[in-house]
């Protein structure tokens, strides 16, 4: 576990940026304190001896589930239009977004 402080304002600003969230200065202060509280509570895990304990990602012994890459019977012909209808902006049957790379126009 990291040395104190568990996380600071700069850490929170960094994760907010990674998570594509913009925070005001006041929010940054409040979230820093609240996230530190959760990490402080989680400090009880530090005392546990976990050597040799395997990590568990899911309760079930998961195996890959495969099927043929074919439309299921009953798949609606208009499903593409319905999916696009639910999006905020579309053009020519595709999702429309602002420029991703390079200079903005």
């Amino acid at each position: 576990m990291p040395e104190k402080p568990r996380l600071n304002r700069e850490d929170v600003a960094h994760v907010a940026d990674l998570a594509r969230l913009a925070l005001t200065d006041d929010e940054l202060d409040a979230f820093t304190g609240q996230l530190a509280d959760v990490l402080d509570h989680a400090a009880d895990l530090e005392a546990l001896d976990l050597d040799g304990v395997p990590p568990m990602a899911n309760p079930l012994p998961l195996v890959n589930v495969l099927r043929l890459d074919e439309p299921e019977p009953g798949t609606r012909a208009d499903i593409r239009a319905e999916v696009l209808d639910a999006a905020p902006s579309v053009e020519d049957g595709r999702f429309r977004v602002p420029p991703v790379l390079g200079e903005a126009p």
Partner: protein
Amino acid sequence: MSARSTADAVRAGERSARSVVEEHLAAIDAREDEIHAFNLVMADEALTQADDVDRRIAEGEDPGPLAGVPVALKDNLCTRGIDTTCGSRILEGWRPPYDATAVERLVAAGAVVIGKTNCDEFAMGSSTENSAFGPTRNPLDTSRVPGGSSGGSAAAVAAGFAPLALGSDTGGSIRQPAALCGTVGVKPTYGRVSRYGLVAFGSSLDQVGPFAASVEDAALLLEAIGGHDPRDSTSIPEASPDLLGVLGQGVEGLRIGIISELMGGPDQAASVEGIAEDVRARVEQAAEALAAAGATVEHASVPSTIYGLSAYYLIAPAEASSNLARFDGVRFGLRVDADTAPEMNTATRTAGFGDEVKRRIMLGTYALSAGYYDAYYGRSQKVRTLIQRDFSRAYESFDLLLSPTAPTTAFPLGDKTDDPMLMYLADVCTIPSNLAGHPAMSVPFGTGDDGLPVGVQVLAPALAEATMFRAAAVLEGTAP
């Protein structure tokens, strides 16, 4: 009138599905302004669906075991062509192009969807105060919360708006509101009910399950929605369990253990804190009732459950931070325009998510980030293994386990909104079952000192819902 007797009356042609739906719409009209259980009441759609049930009966068909029974759906279950908000601004205006499997199965069983219920945003919360559309109030005392995150579903059943409701439970979001509103609430075994069409929060923890006013009705509903679904890769390839058939079997000969670590008593060496005295007393009384009915009841130890809360509040946010990455202004609901795509993503997420969701996304992003992954996420996953192992060991000596569902009865609105960590403690008794993937349910058992309901939690090993329901039926029959 119970869901089961309503369905029987409709199937026998003794009453119309339309009259059942009209009666519940009238109940909603009378009190919904005060409670706010729903984000959307589907009056027209419900009446149309009811008329369809009545027409099929007139034509000699049997619409199924839930014929004409109104069901309220948590607003994170996809309904084709109907707003599905997850209590969030970011999904405003989004209408899913498909139904969740659980919804599809309800309709196939003859049920009538009566509305979409309010919840904490993306099911993150324990009081339903984190909804972007305002809080739901507890029908038993409107100054109190209904619990959460499925608070709208719990309130809808408690207020008589619908005999049945569906919720989702990632860390207690069905059982805790059920306890606070005095209803039955069930989290099935992970994989028992399809997650297809449930908007994902913590994919290794999420499970859809029933709310009902009685154990029998909860059994009826779980039978209808359970069973294998090829559209969910984590769906267990087993048929839905027979529950109605075992309800009368009693608990004679069953070995039941009270989880010492979740009782918080002064005599316990290591236990979670914050379990109220009146709640503890009811759980002890419930244990006595089970013993009087022929079960062997003893104290049980599941030591690592005391670490459940810490592990959960790193694992669930980690999964949430990944799952909620899809809400980026491209495919669903809200978009806040900007000059570039990354700026648009940020503007949309900043405007669309509420504080609790932002908190968990950041916590999860941090727990998964370079340099902290092993210390936080990796460590929590190992603790999860310990919890599952400790349960397995306990189930060598016991058939079922018992604990409080929630540490206290329903608390006042606003009581914990300024202190997220305090709010998280409301889930301390329910979280271990999600981490282990086991079934657990809350059964109302008397009231606390304030006259509000107390829920007793019955926990069972994976796929042992039938045994769990037998004990629940005994508790219901002996509740003070």
